[in-house]
């Protein structure tokens, strides 16, 4: 099916993109403990998905509750777009000594890393939008992965009598305080990705205590 659809469009995609898509072929939902999750975060020059660029991507992959440190992702991207306003936050100064890759290389590595994993991000919409904009610049489609936003998930874990006090917006720091996650290495992509993974695991544990978790519930908005 997938291939027919592409043939109709008569557009040829690079191999790595086809490989990425093929990982969704025969994709079946596993039970939550057997599912591969990837928590990721991007550091950008700003908040405009059209004008701004991704400076770095951090990601950690895990199944169950264990995160292997030797299989994390930490990419720094070569970018010409530069916004002096946001540099203070993440300190990825242009042309410093970090080893950097091009956008296209970053995409290749990132897609090969995530495969068909369920993605997790804090303010997931923003990171997704930035990623999709980058993919579009290189003539590729959008990310196909399921994506869970930690803020939305956190709201689901709150007790019913506080439903009226729920916020639409929690900063990652808010959640760390609420869930007692030690904050180290904030504002680096890989540090934030690791923190996001902890926030996710801790929220999941609180949800799981009350009910047998179903995918529909986890992915609903």
């Amino acid at each position, binding site marked *: 099916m997938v291939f027919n659809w592409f043939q109709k469009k008569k557009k040829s995609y690079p191999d790595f993109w086809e490989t990425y898509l093929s990982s969704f072929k025969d994709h079946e939902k596993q039970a939550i403990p057997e599912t591969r999750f990837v928590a990721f975060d991007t550091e950008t020059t700003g908040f405009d998905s059209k004008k701004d660029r991704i400076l770095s991507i951090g990601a950690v992959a895990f199944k169950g509750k264990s*995160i292997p*440190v030797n299989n994390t992702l930490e990419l720094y991207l070569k970018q010409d777009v530069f916004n002096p306003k946001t540099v203070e936050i993440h300190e990825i100064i242009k042309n410093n000594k970090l080893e950097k890759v091009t956008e296209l290389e970053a995409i290749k590595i990132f897609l090969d890393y995530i495969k068909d994993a369920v993605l997790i991000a804090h303010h997931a919409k923003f990171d997704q939008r930035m990623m999709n904009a980058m993919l579009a610049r290189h003539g590729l489609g959008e990310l196909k992965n399921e994506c869970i936003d930690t803020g939305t998930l956190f709201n689901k874990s709150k007790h019913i009598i506080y439903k009226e006090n729920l916020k639409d917006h929690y900063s990652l720091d808010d959640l760390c305080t609420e869930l007692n996650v030690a904050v180290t290495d904030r504002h680096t992509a890989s540090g934030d990705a690791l923190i996001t993974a902890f926030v996710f695991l801790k929220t999941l544990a609180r949800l799981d205590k009350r009910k047998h978790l179903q995918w529909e519930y986890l992915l609903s908005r």
Partner: protein
Amino acid sequence: MKNSIAERVGDFLKRYPPFNLIKPTLLFDIASQVTITYLEKGNTIFQKGDTSHEFIYVVRDGGIGIHYDNGGIHDILNIHDKGDIFGLQPLISKDPYQVTATANEESIVYSIPVDIFQRVTDNNAKIQKYLITVFASNIDAPYSAEIAGKIFVDYLPNQAQDLVNFQTANYTKNPITCDEDSTVQRAAIKMSLHKIGCIIVVDKSKNPVGIITNSDIKNKIATGLFPINTAVNKIMSSPVITGKKGLTVAEGQLLMIKNTIGHLCITKDGTVNTKLVGVLTHHDVLTSLGNSPTVILKEIKRAKRTRRLRSARLKANVLLKRYLEQNIPISHSIKIISQVNDAITTRAIELAIKKMDAPPPVLFSWLSLGSQGRHEQLLFTDQDNAIVFENVNESTYQDTKSYFLKLGQLVTSALNKVGFEYCEADMMASNPAWCKSLSEWQTQFKHWILKPDEKAILLSSIFFDYNCVYGDKMLISSLTNTIYDTLAETSLFFKFLGRDAVKSPSPLGFFRQFLIEKTGEQKELFNIKSRAVMPLVDAGRLLVLSKQVRDVNNTAERFEKLAELEPENKELYNSCSYAFKALLKFKTKQGLQNGDSGKLIDLETLNKEEKLKLRRCFKPIQEVQEVLKIRFDLKNFI
């Protein structure tokens, strides 16, 4: 590729031994192979008898309990904190684990592959020595002596054999002392100030020369034998019996028995000619060995750190288990555990007040709510609590409130460390909504009573069962007065409570089968809390409130009181009281078995007799619900 996470893992490890002995570049090799694991409270890392893993472990956050289990004997050997290394069995031999490691609270653990760790540390004698000490002190009871002795025979210095055979006595460091020429009065003031039963008399070079105990003061001063301004060296017992630093509990106990004394001075080299470093009391020995309510309560009252409170509470759990096994009446167990819980809360508050910058600005009371308030909390469950403080004028209100909020935070976080989880619904004194002045609380309760809604009823099961654990009792009396005065004005609130109390029908279904939970994972389980315990609790509360009965919080006692007040329903109420106690026992046993709150019972695990017993408890539930329906005219209200 750069790996910042591995760098941070390395930064953490290098702060703790033995990793501080490893070169940074090698440490990074280790750090980059670490797996970070998140554990929920109660998750097991390895179990006694498991083949040893290919990892050793380091606590990143939280606490990991090391347990030893042998045919029902359950011992907690140690609780590892941040930075502690544990699970070293695979470094020693391929034998299975001798102990079980379980998360004592929500934790994060680093797993370090054994092969890389060994490659890096192999030729480092200092590291080897450190690891051996850790291993030996971890498995410190007689059952491991054999194993440890066998393995470490080459490494261990001679006297260390004792270290392995018995645990080191946990004596009081920096004991309270007085000079030879001070008066008995001054010594006694010091003793009462520090709440201690003895004081050591030291000479100029701080060597111990004598000891004065409570009984010396009773026998020599209170009887008029000596005036209170006598110099201490006139009445002290001298010379003192001494022991060396690092002596074991068994050695300490032996010395005490031999010399018929209750206090042992610990000095640098074990003689009276060196500096005093500590005191080992008979109580310390009992604490290490024994397990009785009085010892536990004493330990709590003297605890200076949350960690001590935690170990005391864990001991209470062991005690509880024994009581249940020996069929000690549950009402007795309830009283003891409640006392332990209240004592822990009180001590946690006292310790928190010490940590604050200033003493409390006005009078306040600390309320336990829900099951702790009803004195029905046998196992570790969520904490529910609140603060009531004296009314203050507007100008100082904000400062007062923030003082008590801060206090609330310190206490709830300490209780959490002890093992009482944070309340899921945040009904705790650290929440601004539940830390209020007396008049605010009065308004709040009036509002709940006069304008009842779903939320008010939901909260009533927690808030109407309050019990003052600490602080000013008068504040609470005024609050109770307001509540009963307001209750007299309305009957609507009772109807709401009544509707709630009968909403869970008798747990026996149409076919006399248990109604079991049908949702998800818990489908074979019977929810004893919501189906059986809570209906009785709700009914008891409603009846007691409507009868204006004060200060009886425990559900069993409430029904006993009601039986007195309504002789016509005596039989029913007494059977409710009995059923409640039986259900609580079921729940507690189940909880101890599974290490949780015990609210879900696996019916499969019950034998026929137990099932019958459980069923018998359901009859009074049904009957008391009928009484409620008629008395509060709920037929049309439901």
